[in-house]
């Protein structure tokens, strides 16, 4: 994200704090897809991820006046999304998984070497990225897709900066292990 857009996001938040509905629409239009995708990768359920968006942006509407601009607005949004996603997962923990969800998890998480029939690195990589633990998935997404710096990831996840670096390193090692199990060697590690 450019410095210009970050500054413009802060202006939108200031307007939202004043009750500007149009500013809310602009902010929503700008960020809702990324918020949705981040939430979806965490909760793995489209319905819940859609509910998350409404809750995240409603929090923004309510809390905009307290935003101090210490971090980028997009970082703030992802931190709220993560918090809401983890709460949703906790709520769902004891609930019975429906067949569709269970099958989806089985297909992608439990057995990547079986699901990766084609020896196509790109395809296998995507399947293995999906198979990572939630902890590893979120850090990979935050760094690669959401383009967050070490400091920003530390703020969103709530861990020290050095832990951010080592966690991503181990996520990458796990990814390499999954690919190896699927018969794909990439020369690292």
């Amino acid at each position, binding site marked *: 994200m450019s410095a210009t857009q970050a500054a413009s996001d802060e202006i939108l938040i200031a307007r939202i704090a004043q009750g500007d509905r149009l500013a809310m629409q602009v902010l929503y239009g700008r960020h809702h897809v990324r918020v949705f995708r981040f939430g979806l990768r965490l909760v793995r359920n489209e319905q819940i991820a859609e509910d998350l968006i409404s809750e995240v942006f409603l929090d923004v509407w309510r809390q905009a006046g307290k935003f101090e601009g210490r971090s980028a607005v997009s970082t703030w949004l992802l931190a709220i999304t993560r918090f809401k996603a983890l709460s949703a997962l906790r709520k769902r923990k004891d609930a019975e998984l429906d067949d569709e969800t269970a099958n989806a998890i089985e297909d992608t998480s439990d057995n990547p070497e079986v699901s990766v029939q084609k020896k196509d690195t790109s395809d296998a*990589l995507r399947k293995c990225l999906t198979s990572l633990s939630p902890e590893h998935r979120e850090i990979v997404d935050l760094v690669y897709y959401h383009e967050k710096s070490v400091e920003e990831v530390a703020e969103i996840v709530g861990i020290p900066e050095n832990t951010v670096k080592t966690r991503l390193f181990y996520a990458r090692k796990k990814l390499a292990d999954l690919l190896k199990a699927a018969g794909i060697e990439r020369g690292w590690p």
Partner: protein
Amino acid sequence: MMAMSNKVPTQEPGEIEALLPWHAAGTLNARDARRVDDALAKDPELAKQYAVIQEEYAETIGLNESLGAPSSRAMQKLFAAIDAEPVRSGSTSVGLSARISGFFASLSPRTLAASAAVGALAIMLQAGVIGTVLMQRDTHSFQTASYEAAPSPASAPTTVTRSLAPAPASVEAPTRLFVRFAPTARVSDITALLDGYQGTIVDSGKDGLFRLQFGNRVMTKDQIAGLIRRLENEKIVSMAVQAQ
């Protein structure tokens, strides 16, 4: 014994190795990016690992992009909830940073022309220099901002905290440094840093380099070295060297 055999030997990443994913994503500051580039040029093993990371980076983007977008139901639900919220008074306090950003964003040539306050003009020019460099830093093609149009110190009101006027030539010049800010630095961060160090933008050169003046007094060599050290420890500063 059991615990011993279950223990997997841990391999911590090297300092540069740990930064490779951020280098691939282009989110390192200039100093770290340079360090990683230098290491990549010298170490073929690291370069091999970097190629693997670039592949992971591309596929992570591809995977996320394939997730699609939410339906309009989410937006309808949100605005229904907002409509049900109590009406705002309009006097909610807003963060300092947002107010500064709002101020910068509201500037226009017309505003500048209408401004009779010399101090305000000085601050606006400074904001313009920061904004220009931040907006055009990626292309490395911004124009050098000039302080020639800034008012003379004599006409500047005493309430102005940062003056753009050049130092008098008759006395020893106060300390000036070339400073490059990190790509992630925002206008509000830079403004806060200038305030904290009593810094003034004198001008800006190529590649996002600012020439800054610190205070109005001459510093000793040790003081200058200390200042450079403190600046280089700031997250938003990627380089600070003494200017002539």
